[in-house]
């Protein structure tokens, strides 16, 4: 197999992996603090894509904002940066708040219930959100307008990287660095780590548990929303059930990396994306999920805690 094809598959895989990593962070953040799998997280991804889509179409609609504004926002570099900053901010904040509301209404009342209860509640929230979009928006897939200028840049032989792939990768890496610094260096990040180690003890030491949990439920969904918009821009459509498959895949990525571990989620996302691309490229497209899940099984057999997870001794 030609080297440039391999390079191209790596580029495809890393971009896909970046999106998985963003979603996986949402699963792992919530799990680290609540010991709960937030199955509604895939809907944060979906809802984020929709909010992003509506913000983008609103801001590029001459009837709403005037044709001068649209020309400014879409025709030059500064305008585009401004446009996408607004789109990502609005979607991130809106979905972050949605996450906080969901935590407050669907999970907090069950915080001391058996662990199965919030899980079921999460599945309920997921179904609710899917059907809300299905009923109120559309059952059909909506096209995501291609406002971002896509240019393919040759990097090696026939292999090329598009401006959109660069944009996604740079944003993902920036977000990962900021989040990692936030959790490891700031006071509130320390409170988050303390809560994840022992919620009750952290509470006794004066950490406001509710704030920490709310924060996890703000950051996770906000990152999911960002991934949702990337997904819309990259593949060109949004759909009410678009969250399901990436949700499962990213959850897998979080487990591969070691669920509860932030850097693990990032690593898991990239590993899964690259494996999928290589499997699709060098075996057959039908095998990409097979290979991805075989890797998951292997990781679980040889490193049950995940690649970067600590093997936790069962508390008696």
């Amino acid at each position, binding site marked *: 197999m030609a080297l440039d094809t391999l390079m191209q598959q790596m580029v495809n895989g890393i971009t*896909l992996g970046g999106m998985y990593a963003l979603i996986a962070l949402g699963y792992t953040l919530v799990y680290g603090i609540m010991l709960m799998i937030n199955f509604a997280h895939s809907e944060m991804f979906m809802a984020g894509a929709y909010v992003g889509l509506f913000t983008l179409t609103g801001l590029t609609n001459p009837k709403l904002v005037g044709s001068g504004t649209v020309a400014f926002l879409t025709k030059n570099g500064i305008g585009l940066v401004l446009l996408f900053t607004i789109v990502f901010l609005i979607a991130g904040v809106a979905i972050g708040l949605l996450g906080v509301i969901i935590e407050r209404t669907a999970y907090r009342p069950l915080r001391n219930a058996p662990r199965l209860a919030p899980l079921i509640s999460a599945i309920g929230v997921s179904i609710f959100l899917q059907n809300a979009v299905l009923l109120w928006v559309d059952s059909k*897939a909506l*096209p995501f307008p291609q406002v971002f200028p896509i240019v393919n840049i040759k990097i090696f032989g026939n292999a090329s990287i598009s401006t959109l792939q660069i944009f996604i990768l740079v944003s993902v890496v920036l977000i990962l660095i900021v989040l990692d610094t936030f959790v490891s260096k700031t006071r509130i990040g320390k409170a988050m780590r303390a809560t994840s180690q022992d919620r009750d003890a952290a509470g006794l030491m004066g950490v406001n548990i509710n704030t920490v949990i709310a924060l996890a439920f703000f950051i996770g969904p906000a990152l999911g929303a960002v991934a949702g918009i990337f997904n819309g821009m990259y593949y060109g459509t949004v759909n009410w059930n678009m969250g399901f498959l990436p949700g499962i895949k990213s959850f897998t990525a979080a487990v591969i990396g070691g669920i509860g571990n932030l850097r693990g989620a990032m690593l898991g996302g990239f590993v899964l994306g690259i494996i999928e691309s290589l499997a*699709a*490229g060098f075996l057959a*497209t039908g095998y990409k999920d097979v290979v991805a899940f075989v890797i998951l099984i292997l990781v679980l057999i040889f490193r049950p805690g995940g690649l970067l997870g600590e093997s936790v001794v069962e508390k008696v």
Partner: protein
Amino acid sequence: MSMGKFKKYLSVVAVLAAVALVVTGCGASTTTTTGGGTSTGPVSVTIGIGAPITQGATALGLGMERGAKLAITDMNASAEAKAAGITFTSTTGDDQGDPKTGVNVANQFASNPNLVGVMGHLNSGVSIPASAVYSRANIVMISPASTNPALTLQGLKNVFRVCTIDSVQGPAAADRATGDLGKKAVFIVDDSTPYGTGLADEFGKEFTAKGGKVLGREKTGDKDTDFKALVTKIKATNPDLVYYGGVYNAGALLSKQLKDGGVKVPMMGGDGLYDGQYIKLAGAANAEGDFATSVGLPLAQLPAGEKFTTEFKAAYPNDEIAAYDAYSYDAATVIMKAVLVAAGKVTAAKVTSPEGRAAIISAVAATNYTGITGAIAFDAKGDTTNKAITLYVVKGGVWIPFVK
């Protein structure tokens, strides 16, 4: 909810349930009294519409519902239905383009005592398992859209379709591709459904037979969104055409990603791609020059096409006619005409009885009727005798019939 409120709520539910019981009870008694000969009004029977409404190829599925409902409105206003003392209603079952859900819908339909026939389903993968359920209940089923040959090869007497099959469509597409379009090397992709796989197989066989070269064959999923790795693979083989056996949802994404990835050759597919939604999802610039074959002739070339278009626009001013609106109109009309014939044999009240249902099936088999989509008659397997296939191309952001 407080206890008092809850009780109030309960009593409302109870009243509603009672009303519902009385209403359905009335319906049943009307039927029986009419059967006894004391006519108290027309008998109401139901046509089941089985189509993807919320998931899958919903643009096509919603079109099937529109077409069938329009046919029912027209038939209820017609003199022949009034003379026979029958009014038609419809019930829609959302099969979500999913075989399992389709079988659930089929079971619901089969347990409906008022049902006289099913206009559905869209996807071959749904129609095939659903047809077995209808066969057990002796209910006639006419698909306006399922093109996989296997559907009518099961030897089921109750199964018909008004669309041309893939063993006609696939080769016709390959003939046009190698002939008029002068394509020599194709990469074939399918969506792993019976429809997509079958169509892609038929296309590939004929393409090779006509001297073309198949550079590769890949299977994807019908709900896949990421084709980037596949695109890289296709690019390396350097084809002059990509053939996709599948439906527009995933197909449009493949077309877009092919063009984004620098594979600047047209994509071609079957009737599953032939919808405006394909162009919207792929982006008009990416879809430009893509091809799709579809069953039958374009509406504009059919004698009844203009009348149908006018009527459609009056009933659904906000919708465009999709690939199967007219076929569904015809499929529903064929069922209803057969019900009227059966009513003439076993009386209107007994069309839903076992003998009535058998009479409907034999009446459908004997259909000889000119509908919107042309002359409709069925061969011994239940396939339409209308074998026309049209090649369409995306030009200026719309599908138009391809002219060399």
